[in-house]
């Protein structure tokens, strides 16, 4: 039984490395709240690499348009077919932005259907912590940055009864983009939802 390793997807187009602090923060949250055996540092895995299949959860973010090469698309399709969960976060927090438009289009091509709203009663929101109102809002949404919207739902694509793609316009990449030592300044840890994503990926 191998330890859980947080993987960040590297893709040819766009700025895949725009949120370098997120992996450590998620790893910190997983260790802080669960007994999951987790590696202390994340890995970067090229989307076209077969190494992708070693990680049950892969995180993808960026600001710039995402155009997947055919090798990346094929490997991602294989990965999702093998039961992996791709967590995509729009670092622009802008539903009219190029990242959202291009990435959601690419994902629809990979999974064969457009992304749909995930109901706020979905098991994802009870996988570890309970979020009765669905996905937690980010300070970027509440401050009116990006598209000036508080997104009430996350998007996703299902494979059978489980999520294969989880897509967020809420900019968790900015929300979680700080050194984990600084969590002590927060009254409520805003990375708790990351634990749900990890636990969901490992249990469903």
């Amino acid at each position: 039984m191998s330890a859980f390793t947080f993987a960040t997807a590297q893709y040819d187009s766009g700025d895949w490395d725009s949120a370098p602090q997120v992996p450590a923060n998620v790893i910190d949250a997983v260790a802080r709240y669960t007994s999951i055996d987790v590696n202390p540092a994340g890995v970067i895995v090229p989307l076209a690499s077969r190494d992708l299949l070693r990680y049950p959860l892969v995180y993808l973010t960026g600001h710039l348009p995402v155009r997947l090469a055919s090798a990346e698309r094929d490997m991602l399709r294989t990965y999702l077919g093998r039961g992996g969960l791709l967590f995509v976060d729009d670092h622009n927090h802008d539903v009219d932005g190029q990242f959202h438009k291009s990435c959601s289009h690419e994902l629809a091509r990979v999974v064969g259907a457009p992304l749909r709203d995930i109901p706020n009663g979905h098991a994802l929101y009870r996988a570890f912590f309970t979020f009765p109102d669905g996905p937690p809002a980010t300070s970027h949404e509440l401050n009116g940055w990006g598209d000036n919207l508080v997104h009430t739902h996350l998007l996703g694509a299902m494979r059978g009864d489980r999520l294969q793609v989880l897509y967020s316009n809420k900019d968790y990449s900015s929300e979680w983009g700080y050194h984990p030592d600084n969590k002590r300044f927060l009254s409520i840890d805003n990375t708790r939802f990351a634990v749900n994503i990890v636990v969901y990926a490992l249990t469903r």
Partner: protein
Amino acid sequence: MTARDRVRRVQRILLLGAATSALAWGALAGLAVLAIAATADLISPLGLAARSLLPRTAALAALVAAAAVVRRAHRARQLDRVALWIEERAPALRYALVTRLDLPAADSANRPLAEALDRQVDAVPFEPVAWRAARHALAIPAAAAVVAVLLLLALPRGVVARVAAPHAGDAVARAAAKDNALAAIVVTVEPPAYTGLAPQVLDDPAHAAGVTGSRVRIEGRVAGGPVRATADTVTIPVTTGGDRWRAALAMPAAPAVVRLRQRSRERLLLLEPHPDSSPVVTLVKPARDTVLRAASGVLPLHATFRDDFGLAEGWWEFVVSSGEGENFKFRTIVLGRAGFGNARSAERGLRLRLDSLALEPGDLVHLRAVARDGNTVTGPGESGSDTRSIRIARPSEYDSVSVEALPPPDALKGLISQRMLILLAEALEKRRPRISHETLVDESGRIARDQNALRKQVSDIIFARLDDASGGEESEGEAEKRKDMSPDELLAAASAATDKSGTGALDFAGGESPVVAINRPMLEAYNAMWEAGRALGIGEPKRALPHMYAALAAIQRARLAERIYLRGKPKDVVVDLAKVRLVGKREGIGPAARLPRTSEDAVMARRAARFDAAIERLGTARAAAVDSLLLLRAELLAAAPAVATPLGDAIDALREGRDATAPLVAARRALAGAPVAHTGLSRWGGAR
């Protein structure tokens, strides 16, 4: 009428009788083939392939039978044989007829005999015999043919048509089984008009394939109670008209099982959709991403397009990203939009003037070719080529893109000087026997001064790096002092300076201080130069040379040392797991059970178990086993197409009563998979 004329008349009667008899026997043979086949089809339905042979088989049988009759009657074409046939059936002629025909007509000597024979022949009326024989030859086959016709008429409606004019979709023409409206069905798959494909009619199928969005019509004969149809959880309306019931639905996007139910009966129909593929677009030019110094000139673009049914239109798409960090602006530009006229493949080119995009330094252009197909039902399908990125470099980035020649670095200057000093020292040592001691000491002293100057340059290189790291905290006096340091003192000073920096940002193997690790070859050179300078200073170039060679080698190593620039790489944060483990507040944690996910292999194992159970059931409940295999196939169509294909063949074979061993074995082997080792998604034991 002469005797010859009368025989000719009989000949005509016999030939007429043979011809009608041949027709009757032919008709009988053909009708018999059809009647037997129709009866057999009524008892057990014959396949379309077998039935397609029946019309030709019936015609062949008719021809053979008629030919046999005609062949038997060929003797009637000879007049003397006809006469003999008459003599045989009219003994009163006493061979007068045969004899009369043999007499030459122009021989006057035989005239009396001829007249006597004519009288004798005239006295016997033999034509009725011929008529009787002709009627007799016709009676039996005609009667049999009538019986065959009556039998065919007695068969249920449509049965004769199935054997006489078989065609796809006549499965429901057979008589309905008693109270069973699901005994036979016909499925018509009508592809969308944009595909240009012809409708497909399937008799009694277990599965039907077609392009997603095709119209699927299911038809059967009314018998017993009403028929209900569902696909997954959706009810399909069933209408009744005449003696037929009909249900229609669109071919879904994913494989689905249509369940037809009548009372306790159930029949499954697996719908296998073939998705209309999106166009395949390949960007040929530009072949790779690039960085340009200026946004000017012409960029040739070329792309190829393909689609399975037809391309509607295509265009070039450019997304220009401006900005950096968190602030980006985007422009989307579409050029060259044009129709393809439903062609299945096409090529397009464009000469893009970069000036027209009004690009600024730092802008990034994502370009791709896009095409849309003519799918008007589930589409249109749209897809683009791989994206190429063209970036306009900022002036601050020119160092990374410039190819201008640079002056040699400081270390290289040192290298050149050290070589020169070695050459001078070697020449001096060669001249040593021919020059005075004073000259030797004088020239050696000059080389020593150059060597010391070079040593100080090396010292500056070493400490220049250290000065950068320590933020210039070293005072000017310290720098002056350093110039006269011995190697040991220099190393000690370097280590001390490293400790003083105290940043800890650099990490080196073996516990070396950064300055030592970075400058080790240069420090070796410095050390060797020190020794060489001392030897040269006392007029001993021969003793100095090994140290000078060592200095040169050390500088060479420094020059070849790998330089790694970590520009742009984010800092790696390694979480101290032991420190943070389970220190978070436990509020808000849900009580849900969290169990490890099942592996993909477990899913395949369950499918294999279902397959094995169905095979075991084949002996006792064949129909149920086939249904189980059909449901398994519905699941495998998307998940494991390699298994679904032989499984489909096996289902067809089982339904048609053929030997299904080979496809079942192939399906089982495909289900088990090849014994390969691969890295899978990591498993995990659970969370608390």
